[in-house]
């Protein structure tokens, strides 16, 4: 029996919600970053599932580009964390609040 596409979409929605909750509650910068990666991946799962449903490759190509952008984002974000850590000796986002309202 083939698995219906809606189950994949439900799984993706659950993963996205978990990632969003993590990004909103955690304080460690790295963990927030990991939650964002989780959300990106649930979006990827949605794209691949729709690509399967509609029998088109475009969804998979978008996933390809999302992967590249995620790599760039991780590189720049982690470099930012290293720079911030050099200054402040912490990456606890509650204590890095210069740019917050």
């Amino acid at each position, binding site marked *: 029996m*083939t*698995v219906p596409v*809606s*189950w994949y*979409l439900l*799984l*993706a*929605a659950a993963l*996205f*919600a*978990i*990632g*969003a*909750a*993590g990004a*909103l*509650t*955690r*304080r*460690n910068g*790295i*963990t927030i970053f*990991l*939650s964002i*990666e*989780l959300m990106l*991946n649930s979006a990827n*799962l949605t794209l*691949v*599932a729709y690509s*399967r*449903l509609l029998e088109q*490759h*475009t969804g*998979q*190509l978008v*996933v*390809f*580009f999302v*992967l*590249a952008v*995620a*790599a*760039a*984002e*991780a*590189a*720049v974000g*982690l*470099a*930012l*964390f*290293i*720079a911030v850590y*050099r*200054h402040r000796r*912490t*990456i*606890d986002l509650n204590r890095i609040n*210069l740019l917050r309202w």
Partner: protein
Amino acid sequence: MELAVFALFALLALASALVVVTHRNPVYSTMSLVITLVSLAVLFVLLGAPFIAALQVLIYTGAILVLFLFVIMLLNIGREETGPSSKLSKVPALAAALIFGGMVALFSWRAFRDDALAPLTEEFVSLKALAGALFDRYLLVFELVGLLLLVAVIAATVLARRPRPGEMEPLEPRPEGEAGNAPHRETAP
């Protein structure tokens, strides 16, 4: 058979995703995200996208998460210092529930109705059509992504490089009354 594989790896992905957002130690969070991503790669194979699954394992777990681990160990970040972190306060929980409900509502627009899947065809799974679209219709995007990665590499190198002497103020708090336009620094509690 397919159902069993889906159930196993979907549950694995959900469980390890929960560990990612609840564990106090970032190293364990990262390793748990590895499990999530590999499970998702298996699901990609089930959905007829083996190329994306291979990319997922190679790029995400092979490169990005190794970068995360490297930075965690470079900075020697242990557990979060302050307060209980894994408590799910009301506003984020509500936001997550809203997001989940909203996504389910959006999906039911189309996918929940015509759910019946055509069997996988050789043509859909093959790399040929994918590569044809990538290097034909989306060639410009492909080139731009290459440019983006180049810019990201340069930016990361500039940001993470060791500052030259005199370029950045020392890490120790300055003595009071020292002149200069040093950025505002909070005193540690």
